[in-house]
């Protein structure tokens, strides 16, 4: 199927199953996702796979697995933004590939991501920061595809 013809539903909390998400599948998809553009091939991304049994107490319990995506901190704002952009390109690749396997990926952001104490509890070194937490769950068979209403693009000509 061409990417142009693909439709991805908006996240719906009720459309998922609680069955485990195998690490092997996550790695398989990530190994394609890493072909995201990244400046100077810095490959800034790092991953923490969290199965249900390893879930910290402040994580969402209604999600079978999570993938915490981190990246190296960089003092240069430019380089940091470049690396962050690369990480989100990877995340989008991963989300698209996961959809093909009926695996839903919800890209989430939390206040605890910016609190060093919580990051340390996940084993994240101080020189890294969290880009996003990916909630992973397989779509249930009965999936009502809520069609996304197209948003109006805000585009103007350069003047």
């Amino acid at each position: 199927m061409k990417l142009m013809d693909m439709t991805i539903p908006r996240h719906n909390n009720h459309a998922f199953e609680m069955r485990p998400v195998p690490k092997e599948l996550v790695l398989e998809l990530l190994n394609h996702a890493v072909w995201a553009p990244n400046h100077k091939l810095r490959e800034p991304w790092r991953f923490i796979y969290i199965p249900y049994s390893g879930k910290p107490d402040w994580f969402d319990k209604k999600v079978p697995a999570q993938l915490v995506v981190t990246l190296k901190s960089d003092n240069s704002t430019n380089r940091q933004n470049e690396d962050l952009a690369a990480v989100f390109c990877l995340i989008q690749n991963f989300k698209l590939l996961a959809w093909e396997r009926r695996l839903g990926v919800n890209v989430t952001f939390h206040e605890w991501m910016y609190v060093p104490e919580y990051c340390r509890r996940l084993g994240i070194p101080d020189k890294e920061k969290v880009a996003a937490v990916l909630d992973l769950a397989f779509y249930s068979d009965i999936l009502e595809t809520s069609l996304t209403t197209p948003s109006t693009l805000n585009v103007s000509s350069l003047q």
Partner: protein
Amino acid sequence: MSLRTLIRERRSIRKFNDEPVSQEVVMNLLQKADQLCAYNGDVRWRYLYAGTFEERERLADCITAKILGNRLAKITLGTVINPLRKWIIKVPANLIAIVKTDLDPVKHNEAYGTLCRILQNFQLLAWEQRLGMVWITSQPIIQNDVFYNQIGLQEDEQFVALLQIGYFDKAPKGRERTSAECFMTELATK
């Protein structure tokens, strides 16, 4: 082409051919890219497009303004200006992506992240139609206040990307990626 092939074979393209790029085609791809992101919440970003000759000349003005506005730079870099202008104007289509900043880091990173995800969709969709591009951020000639001022970047906005877009004859070779296993840890069972 399968999705994984599309993702693996996409390359950043810096050298474009003379084939004209239709603004309508670009807008269709961007619309689809937006849709494929399936995000909830507000749209906190916008785009500027430079495709016509006049718009590309304007882009060249914006980029060279910093050099031209500084007497010393004008003297030392004078010979660079014309080739630079020529290079910019030659690119068939340009898309600038801008995000609204937010003091709340959660809101800000969500907006930035969603915009980047849209742009990745855009890069893939374009590649599917043999349209190539390169995402430019690093050039010192672009990341400066004079340029931001010229393009009308507001106080509460952040410049995210300049995408140079065009059809191409030759794609560069892909550079091998490190396998994800090397970058992954697992949180042990409690």
